């Protein structure tokens, strides 16, 4: 099987698996009134009455993979939000500049108040790692949102209209999917005349678009032939309402799951682009991929300055992957026990 087919199959499988009731119904099970005046109490708690989401959540809560992922992600977000409180120094502060000597001591050692030491410009490595989480979060979230917006638009078009609209959209999507995503991201990012944080965000968002589009289109198609859409059609409900009230909200489940996975991919790809110098040239804000790039020359003698940003990238993207994969599994009826 070609990689493209594998990619497609995985997306379509995900779309189909969670096509049944999914998103939206927050916190669902507590419900039934014990008093049932019409005497239907026996039927009240029928198994399907418990929403898919609620049962998925019950399985998730017991899944250690999910818990580890969620803890990692929560820590990451907390660090990013509270970076100014947690970091002992500003990311562009150079308290250790005095210790640097190009030939004998290019990297200040770990010392009191600087548990990881400094970097090649005399800045506190720990503080830069802490602040770096902010850039990573911003880039990851914005790129994923961008991809989500584009993908949901295209997927809705394809899934709602079908026919030639679907064919055209899906051909474009398939072409984009057939390119390795990091190559595509590099290509798009290098088209920009001025590399910046925004070129990274846009490049990664574009790379995510076909993934979301194909996924959403798959679950929209499943919704189109669902019972409740047929029932709505049997009552003459307008086509726009069918698409936006009956099909789309029920199709978003797998897309949300994919978003979590996409965050992980975005973080790695953003780091890769920065590492290759396609990101923000200004290093005052600290960004993990950029730090990794800067560490290249001194890596032989001072591996720790590459290790720490790399570890951050890996751990955070692992957190999102664990969360996403276990959510996907929980929502997949095939994996139910």
């Amino acid at each position: 099987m070609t990689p493209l087919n594998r990619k497609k199959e995985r997306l379509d499988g995900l779309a189909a698996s969670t096509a049944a009731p999914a998103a939206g119904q927050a916190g669902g099970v507590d419900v039934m009134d014990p008093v049932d005046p019409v005497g239907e109490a026996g039927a009240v708690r029928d198994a399907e009455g418990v929403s898919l989401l609620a049962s998925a959540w019950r399985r998730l809560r017991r899944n250690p993979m999910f818990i580890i992922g969620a803890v990692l992600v929560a820590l990451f977000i907390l660090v990013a939000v509270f970076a100014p409180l947690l970091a002992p120094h500003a990311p562009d502060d150079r308290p250790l500049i005095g210790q640097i000597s190009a030939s004998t001591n290019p990297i200040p050692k770990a010392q009191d108040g600087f548990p990881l030491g400094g970097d090649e410009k005399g800045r506190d490595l720990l503080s830069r790692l802490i602040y770096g989480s902010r850039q990573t979060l911003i880039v990851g979230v914005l790129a994923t949102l961008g991809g989500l917006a584009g993908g949901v638009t295209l997927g809705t078009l394809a899934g709602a209209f079908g026919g030639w609209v679907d064919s055209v959209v899906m051909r474009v999507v398939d072409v984009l999917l057939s390119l390795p995503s990091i190559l595509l991201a590099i290509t798009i990012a290098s088209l920009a005349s001025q590399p910046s944080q925004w070129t990274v965000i846009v490049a990664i968002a574009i790379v995510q678009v076909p993934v979301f589009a194909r996924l959403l289109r798959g679950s929209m198609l499943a919704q189109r032939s669902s019972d409740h859409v047929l029932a709505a059609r049997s009552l003459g409900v307008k086509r726009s309402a069918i698409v936006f009230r009956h099909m789309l909200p029920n199709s978003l489940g797998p897309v949300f799951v994919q978003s979590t996975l996409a965050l992980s991919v975005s973080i790695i790809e953003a780091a890769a682009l920065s590492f290759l110098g396609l990101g923000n040239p200004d290093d005052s804000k600290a960004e993990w991929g950029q730090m990794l790039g800067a560490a290249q020359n001194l890596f032989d003698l001072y591996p720790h300055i590459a290790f720490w940003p790399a570890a951050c990238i890996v751990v955070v993207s692992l957190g999102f992957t664990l969360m996403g994969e276990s959510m996907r599994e929980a929502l997949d009826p095939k994996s139910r026990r």
Partner: protein
Amino acid sequence: MTATTTRTSRDARTSREPLLQVRDLSVTFRRSGEEPFHAVSGVSFDVQPGQTVGLVGESGCGKSVTSLAIMGLLPKRGNTVTGEAVFEGTDLLKLSPKQMRDRRGRDVAMIFQDPLSSLNPVVPIGRQVTEVMERHQGLSRKEAEPKARELLDKVGIPDPSRRLKEYPHQLSGGMRQRALIAMALACAPRLLIADEPTTALDVTIQAQILTLLKDLVQDSDTALIMITHDLGVVAGLCDEVNVLYGGRIVERADRHDLFARPRHPYTHGLLASIPRLDSARGERLNPVPGSVADNLPWDHACAFAPRCSNAVEACRTTQPELERIEGGVETPRLLRCHNPISEEA
């Protein structure tokens, strides 16, 4: 229903035009690489205003396809529909998709088998009811809400104000079907098609829903096409019954005539399989042996022949025609059989 009320309402009916005339309706599914499949062939029947007509037969005999064809809800591709479905003088099968959308829910509505999957899981019940009224009656959401509450009350949903805000998974199966009935009747359609509306429900709730449907259609003089595989459902509800086999009508009769003197061997078999009061609940007696998989092609045989205990030589060589037979006080009796069950049986 007492005999007198039956009589008066029926007398009033005969003076009116049929509400729906289905004529020679055929639906053929085509899949690439497969033989065309005739799911419904040459089905004709009338529905008078306010009348309840049953479409009965085993699973796969074409009941749902018939109703979906009338409603214009079959998939856009892969099938051919021929014939007519004249509703109040207009052939529904010739309407544009837009014209048909305007009629669905307003003139003709439908309820389905599985009430849970027929409701949108992420939209509150109330919104799903008001949606239909906004669509067809030009009401705003504000105006529609009190009406939705009234409607839920009418279909026997207790505490409607609270239920309006709830999601489908928070309701029991019976309550969900009541909500769907409310949606279908929201705009007072003249015809309601109910496709196995109780099959997915508990036995005790089935009876409640059937009683509700019966009362509602009687009160509002709504005609009802009742689709079921269960003649027991027909017994309490239908004026006239059409028995389908392999996509064709094989017998039509007044409910009383059909139950008293079934003439088609298949009808006879279905009747024999209704659970009696004195048998264990739900137990099926003498179900018709064999399955639809054994069917012969109608073109030059009786499709039912391999399963029929009355089959004669002609049954495997010539197709029986649907013919008028003796009997039938009010509804003319129709029968498609070479060797019917004798009247005295």
